[in-house]
């Protein structure tokens, strides 16, 4: 009975307190690549632990020792089957959410790209670049396996000099190359898979910030911190009606401050973060696998 309890506790810690604590910490922003892996490990470990708890609980309730066959007249077996069915439903919900988010995102992107292709003018500066005749300063990308687009509005071009524009394009190309959108999709799906009262958007918000930092780092390596920081300030600080809608605390300030302060070598912190991610994944896996391995060893000897 100890295994399911341990796994359930682990799942609860990984869905609630752990993300809350991690989201308040500043160190993940120093190692964004490792931090993205850590967030993914937390999410995956939480799911594994929850499933493991269900399976282990069902296993420990069902049947008497030495009587492995399912007996429909035994209330213990029925409860065990019910728990197993609930666990399976969690898996189905997850897969359903992943599929739904993937299909919805692609449909919306396709429609958006169709519109961009008839409304915006191609520009040869980088492949896939389209210039939109709009005064609102705007720069974004449309990820795709083939035919990805980077869209920049005339309003944005007016506010950027050559080096700043290059930094913006490098940032967007980094998103497209590394398919950061797929990371965000995972967390969106996870967010949608769980009922409103257990889910939180902490992980998704953090993932959004971290992929921006990753793209910033890439652009910084190509064109230095200054053009990128200037571009961020030029495009974020320009007056626009949506300013009122902006969240109280956005990642923009963090991004510019990070560019302003030279980054020290963070190899140790990154290594520790990766180690933490691996440990998180190994923990529930071992807890689930240990009894099975023990049983196999016993059967062989």
């Amino acid at each position, binding site marked *: 009975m100890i295994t399911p309890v341990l796994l359930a506790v682990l799942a609860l810690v990984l869905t609630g307190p752990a993300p809350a604590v991690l989201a308040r910490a500043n160190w993940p922003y120093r190692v964004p690549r490792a931090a993205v892996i850590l967030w993914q490990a937390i999410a995956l470990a939480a799911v594994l632990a929850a499933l493991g708890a269900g399976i282990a609980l069902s296993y420990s309730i069902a049947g008497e020792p030495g009587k492995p066959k399912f007996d429909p007249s035994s209330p213990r077996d029925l409860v065990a089957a019910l728990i197993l069915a609930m666990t399976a439903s969690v898996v189905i919900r997850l897969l359903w959410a992943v599929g739904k*988010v993937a299909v*919805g*995102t692609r449909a*919306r*992107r396709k*429609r*958006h790209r*169709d*519109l961009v*292709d*008839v*409304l915006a*003018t*191609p520009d040869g500066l980088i492949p896939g670049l389209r210039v*939109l*005749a*709009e005064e*609102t300063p*705007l*720069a*974004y*990308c*449309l*990820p795709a396996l083939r035919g990805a687009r980077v*869209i920049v509005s005339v309003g944005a071009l007016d506010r950027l000099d050559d080096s700043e524009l290059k930094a*913006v394009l490098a*940032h*967007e190309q980094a*998103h497209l190359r590394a398919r*950061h*959108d797929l990371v*965000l*999709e995972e967390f*969106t799906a996870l967010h*949608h898979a769980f009922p409103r009262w257990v889910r939180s958007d902490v992980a998704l918000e953090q993932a959004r910030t971290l*992929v921006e930092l990753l793209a910033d780092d890439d652009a910084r390596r190509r064109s230095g*911190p200054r053009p990128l*920081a*200037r571009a*961020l*300030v030029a*495009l*974020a*600080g*320009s007056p*626009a009606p*949506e*300013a009122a*809608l*902006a*969240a*109280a605390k*956005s990642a*923009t*300030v963090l*991004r*510019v*401050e990070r*560019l*302003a302060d030279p980054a020290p070598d963070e190899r140790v912190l990154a290594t520790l973060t990766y180690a933490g991610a691996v440990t998180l994944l190994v923990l529930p896996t071992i807890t689930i696998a240990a009894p099975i391995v023990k049983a196999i060893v016993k059967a062989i000897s």
Partner: protein
Amino acid sequence: MGDLERLVMEQLWAASTALTVREVHERLAGTRELAYTTVMTVLDRLAKKKLTERERDGKAWRYRAAAPREELAADLMRDALDRAGDRREALVRFVGQVSDEEAALLREALSRLDGQERTG
């Protein structure tokens, strides 16, 4: 192909009535050397994308833009600026808008960066 779609749509937006493939082909002839069948394919693709609507006129099809240019441009901008939507993962924006307070913090960080440049 994407560029061609834009040129064809521009002809449809400029026209006051629905156009046949031949009419679109003639209007484009001034700017581009295009095969009649290419124009036909492009119009067909645009219809599949629901950007044009077509109606029978005797043996020929007549095409019109499904919506005025301004309307589609407004749709595009609404979609691009949608920050509240759950599905904003579809587009990854370079940066959103910030509050006045944050804009001040941004300028401060930027001047720090400029200072480094001068001293360093």
